[in-house]
């Protein structure tokens, strides 16, 4: 589940102000194929990128509904397969089975949330294929831009002007075509 999308540059910034300037400069040039890397989520970055609500919530909902259904189904099936009739009373009992359904709603809701995170965030990725700078988890920020080599050089210049302290470049290796063609 790699997040790798091809050739890109990674421009590293020491401050959040310069990072925001970099985002502004890219927007001004009409360039949109970028992502931002930061040690913590930050409102200023969110304000610039206007992210849509994460689809993880759909996973949570589906997981919760599944757990809820499973809770009722399990208790119903268990009772039907071995009815224990006490005092002639109905053997399907709603309140205690509701407790099982409630707990399984939470359990499967939580498990589905984690699945939703991993699927959407492209995790786990045990070998990071993208360019990466070890300062980014700590106290630096970065803009990662995807494009072809010529475009990457232009973007690199734009970002350097806004205060990028270092730029890493990663060019996709295009597989050689078969040379022995008739």
């Amino acid at each position, binding site marked *: 589940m790699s997040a790798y999308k091809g050739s890109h540059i990674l421009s590293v910034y020491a*401050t959040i102000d*310069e990072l925001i300037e970099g985002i502004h400069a890219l927007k001004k040039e009409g360039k949109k194929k970028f992502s931002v*890397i930061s040690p913590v989520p930050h409102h200023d970055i969110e304000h610039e990128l206007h992210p849509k609500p994460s689809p993880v919530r759909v996973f949570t909902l589906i997981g919760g509904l599944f757990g809820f259904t499973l809770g009722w189904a399990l208790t119903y099936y*268990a009772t039907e397969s071995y009815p224990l009739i006490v005092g002639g009373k109905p053997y399907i*009992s709603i309140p205690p089975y509701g407790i099982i359904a409630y707990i*399984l709603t939470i359990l499967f*809701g939580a498990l589905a949330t*984690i699945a939703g995170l991993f699927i959407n965030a492209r995790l786990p990725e*045990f070998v990071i294929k993208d360019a990466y700078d070890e300062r980014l988890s700590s106290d630096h920020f970065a803009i990662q831009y995807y494009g072809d080599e010529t475009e990457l050089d232009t973007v690199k210049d734009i970002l350097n002007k806004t205060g990028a302290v270092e730029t890493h470049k990663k060019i996709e290796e295009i597989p050689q075509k078969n040379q022995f063609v008739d």
Partner: protein
Amino acid sequence: MPSSYNLSYTKTDADLLNTLKSPSKGYWVALAILSIGLLIGAYGWGSQIYYGMGMSGKNNPVGWALYITTFVFWVGIAHSGTLISAILFLFRVRWRAPVYRSAEAVTVFALCVAGLFPLIHLGRPWVFYWMLPIPQMGEMFPNFKSPLVWDLFAVFTYLTVSSTFFVLGMMPDVAILRDKFRGWKKKVYGVLALGWRGTDQQWRHYTAAYLFLAALATPLVISVHSIVSWDFAMSVVPGWHDTIFAPYFVAGAIHSGLAMVIILLVPMRKWFSLKEYITDHHLASLAKLMIFTAFVVGFAYAIEFFMAWYGGDIYKRDVFLFRAFGPYWWSFWGLFFFNFILPMLFWWHKYRTNTVWLIVVSIGVSIGMWLERFVIIVTSLSHEYNPFAWGSHFLTSTEVYIIIGSFSLFFFLFMVFAKILPVVSNWEVKEVIEPPKKK
């Protein structure tokens, strides 16, 4: 967390690494002592399995005794973690950031320890799977109308959700360790970080997942101990059959959990030099929360006695008189003193900012909460309806060994955790301090 704190992103990372440097001699000595405690516990359990359940003080009528007392105690301890990590997160309480990781660790480790007690109590732990919702002979499942089955579901779900929340919360911090360390440590933390890079897309999904997990964990804080309380309240034992049991247990759980968090935080901030993160303000906030929970449990004690008198049930009334003036009077008055009277010291600023008093009161509350469960279980079972069936519980050395083992296991797990993973949530502390800016 006040912004006047002199913290920066670089400093928080340096302090994080500082907590993980090679342990001192004192650490190893403490770990060795806890290992001896673990062996004592293993010996106690082993001898009980070998010689039989007669090694415990359980008898007829006191068929639930110290194991279930200690089980309820540990489940209770587990509650503060989720209160601090999930509920305070949903309410956007800023002071939770530096303390929640330790509180969450308390939850996970306390649940691990608690989960052992039903097995110890079983007598034949190798058939533990009979509790699971799988059909036995003739398609017969466990009885889903039994609170004990609800309990299994609730505790298992709580352990799963809180462990997930705990591990998920650490992912960005483990990525810092991956980037800071070299050699084999880099490889290990690299695997644990799962390839976290901190892209805006990862943060977008991560913060959403974190929020939903917090929202899912929050009802568990209320429901898990409610369900544990129904193990008692659903029966007809006088002193157990009370509608107040669920809120009473939840409040007590949070009360004891807060005490345990303070017991661990105070020495931790000293040993790891974390005074800039876990400040007097944080400890005082926890102490204030304890005043509130002390009042809730105090109110529950009063209501229980009031209902015993007002309800007109002679058996229940007798059990409550037995609790206060019978042979177990010391445990009843002990719990009242430790859980209600002692935390009142925190009304005074000097006590809630004095670490010695914080520890003393917290240890007192822990003892008090254990006594509370002892009183509920032992005094009720030993004094039910028929005077000819009354009895007593006699403490045995096996029970003492197993309880020593359980405390040793809890502190052992916490100490190991404190040296291999970040005890303070670095990324959430960074969220509440100023990011690096142009000068």
